[in-house]
């Protein structure tokens, strides 16, 4: 049965505690945030994606022929010139594969995973690599910038789903106005902070779709949601007893990588037979339902776990953060 055969995650090397915003601005606007992971000067979504993918490939018991790479990312360094092409260059000696970059929404990471699954469902014996990586940027004087972090997750998808079998995908779309957008040519996110609670509305819309299906009881919800959404998401999705990750509070808002990174955490903790729902939320939602496989415990023995990644990293001060993120650079003007 098609599903996840291996997985990996990566975090950047630096950490900023929420107290740094209190010292610099008088308060941290990201309520519930303890610290966030962020990219050093020489890191970006591409380098994080390569690191996560290398771990996922390294965990495979034997080499497989990857026929496609799907890269979910809202912060690639180029608008044209696929950064997804850098991943195979760094990972494979084989260039005979489909490479697709999915961007423009916090759903992009889960969309990449679902696309990889659908690629494998479309042909017998196919393998694909799904990579989600992000490092969203915001203006230094914007309150929503306080939450913005970075992370990456990668999944090798194939015909036997030894780690987690794919059950079903769900999607809802919802146009939003004023929350989390970035015009063409801009590097920083904008948010008019209208308090329209768009993510809650998207979650509720997804919950309505889920309630119409017969997905049963889910053990783990992998959302990467912020503290506000976390309070109501399980109930909105009709899974009030599900385990929720609390990763947002320690890595920040990793954009389209948030939910896939949370899926990796769920796989780190899950047991065979447990159901995991992974949902990327923003201007609608894309979700994938999985059942943890019998090989899960064996395949996760090798390599770093999410808890170890979160506990690692060098803590720096706010000015160092601004410098590494190029927010004080006149040459790069805050661009990633």
């Amino acid at each position, binding site marked *: 049965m098609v599903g996840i055969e291996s997985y990996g995650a990566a975090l950047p*090397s630096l950490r900023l505690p929420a107290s740094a915003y209190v010292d610099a601005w008088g308060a941290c606007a990201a309520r519930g945030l303890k610290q966030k992971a962020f990219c*050093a*000067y*020489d*890191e*970006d979504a*591409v*380098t994080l994606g*390569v*690191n996560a993918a290398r771990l996922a490939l390294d965990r495979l018991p034997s080499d497989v022929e990857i026929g496609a790479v799907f890269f979910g990312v809202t912060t690639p*360094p180029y608008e044209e010139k696929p950064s997804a092409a*850098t991943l195979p*260059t*760094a*990972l494979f*000696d084989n260039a005979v594969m489909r490479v697709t970059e999915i961007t423009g929404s916090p759903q992009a990471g889960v969309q990449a995973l679902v696309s990889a699954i659908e690629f494998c469902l479309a042909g017998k014996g196919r393998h694909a690599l799904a990579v989600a990586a992000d490092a969203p940027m915001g203006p230094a004087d914007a309150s929503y910038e306080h939450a913005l972090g970075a992370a990456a997750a990668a999944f090798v998808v194939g015909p036997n789903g030894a780690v987690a079998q794919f059950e079903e995908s769900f999607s809802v779309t919802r146009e939003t106005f004023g929350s989390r957008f970035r015009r063409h040519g801009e590097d920083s996110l904008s948010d008019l902070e209208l308090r329209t609670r768009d993510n809650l509305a998207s979650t509720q819309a997804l919950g309505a779709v889920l309630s119409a299906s017969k997905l049963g009881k889910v053990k783990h919800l992998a959302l990467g949601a912020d503290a506000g959404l976390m309070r109501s998401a399980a109930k909105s999705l009709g899974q009030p007893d599900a385990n929720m990750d609390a990763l947002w509070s320690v890595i920040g808002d990793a954009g389209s990588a948030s939910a896939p990174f949370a899926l990796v955490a769920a796989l780190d903790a899950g047991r065979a037979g447990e159901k995991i729902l992974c949902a990327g939320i923003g201007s609608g939602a894309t979700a994938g339902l999985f059942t943890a496989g019998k090989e899960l415990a064996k395949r996760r023995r090798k390599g*770093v776990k999410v808890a170890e990644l979160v506990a*690692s990293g*060098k803590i720096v001060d706010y000015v160092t953060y601004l*410098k*590494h993120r*190029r927010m*004080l*650079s006149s*040459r*790069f003007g805050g661009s990633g």
Partner: protein
Amino acid sequence: MTSYVSLPMFGANVDERLRLIAGKCNGCGQLAYPQRPVCTKCGGDQFEDTPLSGEGSIYTYSMVAGNGAPSEFDDEQTMTGDVLCGVVELKEGPRVMVRLADTDPEQLEIGMKVSAVVRRLYDQEGIVRYGTKFVPQKS
């Protein structure tokens, strides 16, 4: 000062740099990384691509302080301070000049175990130059 590498030259061996592929001399078996047209040991000119593990140890290191780094690193040095460089002896034998990352000068030691990671080397002519740096191995 600059150490300008043209984009065609950069692109010509990008696989070799991102995936650490050495050339193994068909004549004597010596590994060359970065790859060379002629073997320094036997003069042979036929090589076989051989992937390296990306693991090694610091043979020597140096810190480029102040504004001493080439111009493509100007912004990085202004933003993050001293640039750390070194020679890493790879597990398979070749010694290679590298950038070191995720460490402070006072933490570096000769013989320290390091691993290869893909990082942004610099940003020039609107193109991000990705390459390999070495970071201390997690204990």
